[in-house]
């Protein structure tokens, strides 16, 4: 289940990071919707893992067909897995302790149910590739 974030909640700013200039998407994980379920990112991770470490052994840049001068796409790619980690740390810090029933309604990860694993994943993969 994907959580669609309203566009008004996002903003883009240019921030200074180290010695480079990097775009950063302003997003407050504690206040805006975040989901643990990011199947498309995980499919992409599996694809990268198979391509970079499998029999192909191709560089990541060639697998993703990236322009070496444009890290914007990677900045967006990193967002959702990073939000999951941030959400996990906030949950451990008891910042979400009052949202108990809300979190209860979320479905468990698709890996537990083989039927969902086979159907939803393939459906999302098709949607992503199309």
């Amino acid at each position, binding site marked *: 289940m994907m959580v669609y974030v309203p*566009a*008004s909640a996002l*903003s*883009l*700013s*240019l*921030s*200074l*990071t*180290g*010695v*480079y*200039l*990097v*775009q*950063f998407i*302003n997003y*407050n994980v*504690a206040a805006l919707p975040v989901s*643990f379920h990011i199947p498309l*990112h*995980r499919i992409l*991770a*599996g694809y990268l*893992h198979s391509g*970079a*470490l499998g029999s192909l052994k191709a560089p*990541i*840049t060639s697998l993703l067909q*990236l322009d070496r*001068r*444009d*890290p*914007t796409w*990677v*900045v*967006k*790619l*990193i*967002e959702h*897995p*990073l*939000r999951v*980690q*941030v959400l*996990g*740390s*906030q*949950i*451990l*810090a*008891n*910042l979400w*302790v009052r949202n*108990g029933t809300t*979190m*209860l309604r979320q479905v468990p*990860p698709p*890996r*537990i149910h083989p039927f969902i694993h086979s159907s939803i994943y393939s459906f999302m993969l098709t949607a992503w590739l199309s």
Partner: protein
Amino acid sequence: MALVKQLLYRHHTSYDDTFELDIFLLQACALLLGPDKFIDICQRRFMIPVIRPQISPTQWHIIFREWLMFLLTVAKERTKCGMSTQALLRREIIQRLATTDLSYSQLSSQICRRLATHPEFETTLNQVATYQSATETRSGVYQLRPSCWDEFDLYFPLYTSRDQQLALERYQDAKKTKATPPPRYYDSYGEFAALDGLLYCPTMCDILCRIFGEALLQRSGAPSADVSEGALSIALHILAMATARAPRTPIADTTRPILVSETPKRTPKSCLRRSGDGDNANAADDDDADLASFHSRHRAEQEQDAADKSDDDDDNDDDEKEDDYEQEEEEDDDEQLVRARRMAAKLSFDEYLRTPLNSSGRMELPFLSILLLLYRSMKNDGDNAIELLKTVLLAISDRDPTNSSAIRSALPELITEQEQQRKAAEDAAKARKDLLRRRQQEILARFKNQQQTFLESSGELSESTSGREHDARSSSDEALHNVREFECALCHVSTDPSAPNAKIIGHISLVQRNRIVALSSEYDQPLEHAGNAPQRRPHPSRVDLLLTNVAAATQEQAQTLDRQEDDDMHTEPTPWHNINRGDSVDIKFCGHHIHLSCLYGYFTSLCETYETVLL
């Protein structure tokens, strides 16, 4: 339930399809962006400096600790990028058994199915653990072998804080120490080896320096400083790994990103102002239309909010001015930060440790000075983490002579203690080697004496031309002179063979066929004859393997006897007749003795028993 959800994310039924894939994707992005950019984005996403005043200190400690743990995981985790399945299986079993002893079913249910159903699961389990049989009050469990505690990783990414605490207590009990375990390193594959840059890039060094500086202030009683023990331990862990992995070249050479954005010609501050001037300014630099649209919408919303606020309350104008002033201050700080990191990137890791970077106003004290002051403070407090910090300082001292002299001048007792420990270890190793060498020489001399005694008693090697054999015989005579009595293995009566009218006593030996000994190169050569009389081959000078030589000599004797039989010469029956021709013999001694009469009696009883059974 939020906690349940978080635990489910790392649960054994799903972590290989959720958590590990997320970490792998983040690692790939860290490679593409470079360590500095990646850490900075993570820091902003975790809202590390921003969220602190909004939450309680306990919550802040947990979030900060989780953030450091996340960076450490991305930097060192190799589950999807380097570790083989066998290594992964071994690590999983060790980490699970480190928390508590588990039965087979409990263990297989705590790791993912891909590993639990691996064909080498049981083999690996038996390698790393021993089975404790079931008792009346407890089922049979597997216990981690003591040697496998060296492979224990305290910061295993799938541990909860409770698991970590349990495993640490068991580790300290097993190792009988209060120190935390040293870092574990995993091999990486291909381009993923560059993930080590996350450990020693300027941004990480800056973060570590701030943590140690704040810990130092906290120990000196500053009220604003607040660093938890867990965060300090993880920071020490990262520093230890960085010290071990950092190259001696400048940091910038090894932490370059794969994707390099175009270097802005304008200053960062002007870039920020220009991006805020209009919507098209950012779109011109950024090819992504979505991000540009997000930015334009946000700008429009901000302008709308500002207009609403100005209509509502005029006092907010002062606040906005203050905000602008703070923003300018932050931009100035950012510029200083950029300058400091640019300077740090040109230095090597060792140079960075001793460089104060005062020109940019970032660091008033060198990183190494902070570490030394922290060591003194922790030593006074008796902190458990001091062992790890001590290890780090010694590693820094070993890496660079300049840093070594600085540490020696600041903490002479540390270097002196290290040298004393090293010297004591070398002396102990040398003494152990000498003891083993003496013991080995004694054993060899004893064997030589016993064999020479046996050969002399059997009369086979009465005439020996080798000076070495003469020495051996003289030593065996000395041994016989020293040892007066031998105990019979059957009647247990001690007998002195030199005494008059003493019973005949000799060694118990096992004589058997051996084709391997016959392959001795020297004895494979044809014998030389002087006429019809057989000539004994000179005994080889190298008699290290005395058994081999004795066996070869017996083989030669057997061949000589065979030839004598062919010439119809009278021969006495010898034991060698029982050995087939063409084979060699192997004689083994157990070190016991037996009377000849006892041996005959034993054989007689055997024959009688055999006849009784037949009748």
